[in-house]
């Protein structure tokens, strides 16, 4: 049986460290697949102008395209070159919620993420995505510092 692990990337160094950790882990497990995931922070409850709405579909495609070509595909390719099974997923949504959902949908046994990507004022009020994930995830979460 394949052991699946979801690893969350965000295009930053901490995300890279999470990926490195996941790769090391995967290389030690027989038949392991990494679900390399990039969640584009997005909320359906924001206020936008009509013009922004009109162009939203186009922007969404652009955002997915950028995340895929710049972060996810290179990571998946590198993993495959190292002999590790991997697939990429890019989605919009709340980072913690979406990572958890993707992990559940793919039947992953754990989630690996970097420590903190956002900081400052918002973090103090809402907590970081990582904190939220740790608090609410349905599978074990490994946080890489």
């Amino acid at each position, binding site marked *: 049986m394949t052991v699946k692990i979801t690893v969350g990337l965000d295009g930053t160094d901490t995300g890279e460290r999470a990926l490195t950790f996941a790769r090391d882990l995967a290389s030690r497990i027989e038949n392991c697949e990494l679900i390399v995931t990039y969640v584009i922070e997005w909320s*359906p409850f924001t206020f*936008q*102008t009509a*013009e922004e*709405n*009109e162009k939203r*579909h*186009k922007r969404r495609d652009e955002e997915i395209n950028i995340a895929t070509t710049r972060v996810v595909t290179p990571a998946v390719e590198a993993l495959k070159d190292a002999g590790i099974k991997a697939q990429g997923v890019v989605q919009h949504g709340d980072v913690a919620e979406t990572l958890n*959902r993707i992990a559940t949908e793919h039947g992953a046994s754990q989630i690996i993420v970097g420590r903190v990507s956002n900081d400052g004022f918002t973090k103090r009020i809402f907590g970081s995505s990582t904190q939220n994930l740790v608090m609410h995830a349905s599978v074990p979460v490994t946080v890489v510092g």
Partner: protein
Amino acid sequence: MKAYKTLLAASIASLAAPAAFAQGIDEQVNQAFATATGPFVSFIFAPIPGTGFPWIVMWLVIAATVFTIYFGAVQFRFFGHAIGLVKGDYSDPNDAGEVSHFQALATALSGTVGLGNIAGVAVAVGIGGPGATFWMILAGLLGMASKFTECTLGVKYRNEYEDGTVSGGPMYYISKGFNELGLPGGKILAVLFSIFCILGALGGGNMFQANQAHAQISGIVGDYPGWITGLIFAAVVFAVIVGGIKSIATVTEKVVPLMGILYVGAALIILIANYNMIGWAFGQIFAGAFTGLGVAGGMVGALIQGFKRAAFSNEAGVGSAAIAHSAVKTKEPITEGFVSLLEPLIDTVVICTMTALVIVISQQLIIDETTGVYMLNEAGTAIATVDGNTGVALTSAAFGSTISWFPFVLAIAVILFAFSTMISWSYYGLKAWTYLFGEGKTVELVFKIIFCIFIVIGASASLGPVIDFSDAAIFAMAVVNILALYFLMKLVRVELNSYAERLEKGEIKKFGH
């Protein structure tokens, strides 16, 4: 940017101009405007022969009633479902990142919630008495069905371009829908709608806003020529829609909902503070609805004012919201219709009623103590108010009588509402404009410049001619739109029946979030 600076410089220089000269400009603009728009306004508001009842009001009410019956009171049957859709219960997480139902609703609302709710209601209650509120609420409830019809069609027949952007609205569903049904005249109606939409954008979506924003500002800082406000507003709008300074629009989009909440909150505080009068106020509203309580035009006057201002405020049947809602990417156009039916409810039934209650409770309308009916002003055209206030000044005085500093908050709210409505309508007008003249940078620029010029005219003219023209233009849109909706409504019913059946069978599922 250069033009923006020139405009600013001109407006600053003008502040030094002699007041008499400045007032002269206002008067000239006002007169020229009233003469130019007179015939159009008289036609739209022509009474049904033998009565004093404008045919256009009848037209809107009949339409809203027909849609309500035709779709089996869709606004009540699917109310809960509409809330569920807005909450995102039925949104597929894999579609995340597209325009959500909530966002489309919020965008459409920011175009409608505005001065209609603050100034328009004051006009209705000032002329038609408290009873106008009753008819306004009724019109709001019925109007939900009109909104449902047009917004469903708006999404169903929008244009999707190769680059992923979309354009929609009555002009598209009229021409495409008529084609599909093999009916003639679709193109002509679509063109006619576009022309009226441009006028509506310049009228209610622009001049009325500029005019009332000026009234509000001059009420606080003292009287000064309206064209100065007009120039400043025009400069800022220009900076956003031509200069592409998105930050201003973005900030407004975030602040406006907050202002809306603040406004309703303040109204609630006043109602709570005067809770013992709420019963009396509703009594006045019901009694006034059927007797008129001595207002100009009696019960019919109350009814006309109520229906007119409701339509002006929530724009149900006008077709503007269909433009705003078309941006939603959904597999089921009808879901957007369900969501849109919440608009007249929030706009008219909730916010407008709040304004009306505050005005009635604050006793700004003078009641003759001996007869218990409302006293008319000297001209006999409206109810006498405490300081002779009308429009937004009346609302401001009503709020100020309980919360003394609120008129300042209201002034900011009015300016922001006016601004966001202008931005929304510049978009609606532009869509109609590009439908007529094709898409392209120069074509769009021409419209945007015309739009800015009308801001100055609107701020300079007096309320009477501006409100007449604004109403007339918006209602002219409804004439064409509703006529088309009668032919197209069977297409919506097919969608509705199919959706209702699948919802019943459980084929349309909630997504666990």
